[in-house]
């Protein structure tokens, strides 16, 4: 991508985000049950979606890396984990804030929020592992293994938490709500998607540049030649 296209896309993402905030805060009507608190959903749900999307992409990158190693896949895995952690954190914080007026408590051990919290700790471990291993090859393979294990754990965690305690009844997908709310949610979902793309691409390039710095072989010295012992 050329530089003007990149800058243009960044501006586009910002515009989507700003307009999305206006739509969510002012244009969309308040919910019959939850009143204005419902507006938190326009940020919370897209953030959660982006976190899950990042986790899925991380899983894909990890599997693909073990299939055939490449620094690009490793860099992409690093980017998805970090950006996913960001969106996941936002989603959890917003979920807790939404829970306070709705459920009366910040944390109600709702299976989806709890799974997300466990996932965040797991990805924090993933990123810590990446930081604590210096050898790029080892780091790439080991973090790919850890990434696969975390991703495989997600449904198991979800089921176990659901069985352990279930509180979450209302499914907040567009189908159950007012058309204006659907538009607000979709608009913000696309805004977050644009931001996600900007973040992923940027973080990926940072990671790839770091990999290249780590793995470029210095030139052979002048006068070095092959040794043949016979």
């Amino acid at each position, binding site marked *: 991508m050329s530089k003007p296209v990149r800058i243009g896309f960044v501006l586009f993402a910002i515009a989507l985000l700003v307009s999305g905030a206006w739509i969510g805060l002012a244009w969309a009507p308040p919910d019959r049950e939850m009143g204005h608190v419902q507006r938190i959903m326009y940020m919370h749900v897209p953030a959660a979606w982006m976190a899950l999307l990042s986790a899925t992409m991380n899983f894909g990158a990890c599997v693909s890396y073990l299939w055939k190693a490449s620094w690009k896949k490793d860099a992409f895995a690093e980017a998805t984990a970090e950006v996913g952690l960001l969106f996941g954190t936002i989603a959890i914080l917003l979920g807790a804030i939404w829970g306070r007026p709705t459920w009366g408590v910040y944390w109600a051990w709702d299976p989806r929020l709890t799974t997300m919290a*466990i996932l965040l700790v797991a990805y924090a471990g993933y990123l810590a592992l990446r930081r604590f291993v210096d050898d790029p090859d080892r780091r790439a*393979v080991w973090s790919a293994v850890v990434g696969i294990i975390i991703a495989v754990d997600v449904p198991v965690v979800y089921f*176990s938490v659901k069985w352990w305690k279930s509180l979450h009844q209302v499914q907040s997908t567009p189908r159950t709500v007012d058309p204006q709310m659907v538009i607000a949610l979709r608009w913000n979902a696309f805004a977050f998607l644009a931001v996600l793309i900007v973040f992923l691409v940027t973080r990926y390039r940072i990671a790839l540049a770091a990999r290249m710095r780590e793995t470029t072989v210095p030139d052979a010295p002048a006068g070095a030649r092959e040794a043949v012992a016979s």
Partner: protein
Amino acid sequence: MRRPGLLASTWVLFRKDLLLEWRSRARVNALLFFSLATLLLFSFALGPDTALLRRNAGGYLWLALLLASVLALGESFRVERENATLEGLRLVPVNARAIFLAKAVANAVLLAGLGGLLVPVLVALLDVRIVLPVGQLLGLILLGCLAIAAPGTLYGAIASHARARDVLLPLLLFPILIPALVAAAKGTALVFEGDPMGQFPSWVALLTSFDLIYWGLGVLLFPRVVEE
């Protein structure tokens, strides 16, 4: 040159791991007293309400085992790191899956033994009654320890060669073990409290599927971990 097969190598290495544990039984004893101390600490931290303690006994058992497992796993890879013996095995060459299976089974056996020893302590200390058949409890403990051992061995091998390994192992291991912890602790609580709703089998099923998933993943991924 003919090499021993997967099961034969696993058997050789498993006996080696058990022998090592037996030789360093002072450390194993220390592990036992560590988990006893954690049980005591839970009781003290949560006050003298015996009814509450009895109700939470299943959770204490698994928390004690989980904390002990981090030490046991760290120790089992410290022994291998001392003279780079893991690399030595790899260069023999030994099938990496045999290394994984032997280590994971040895760790599971160690933890299950520890769990078995903790049960009478729970009975005596917290006045716990074993309502369901004891065999079910022992089976649950074995399943739970298998669940800890498979990802634990995989992560132990990774963490033992990273910086800050003592922090890294629990940080990586604990989040993914939550389903196993939930299933094992709930199942144990049912053993202690009785199971009028017949929920015990579903927790066992959850634990079993966790075991199958992670033993499969371990066998699949461990060679990649030690190859680097």
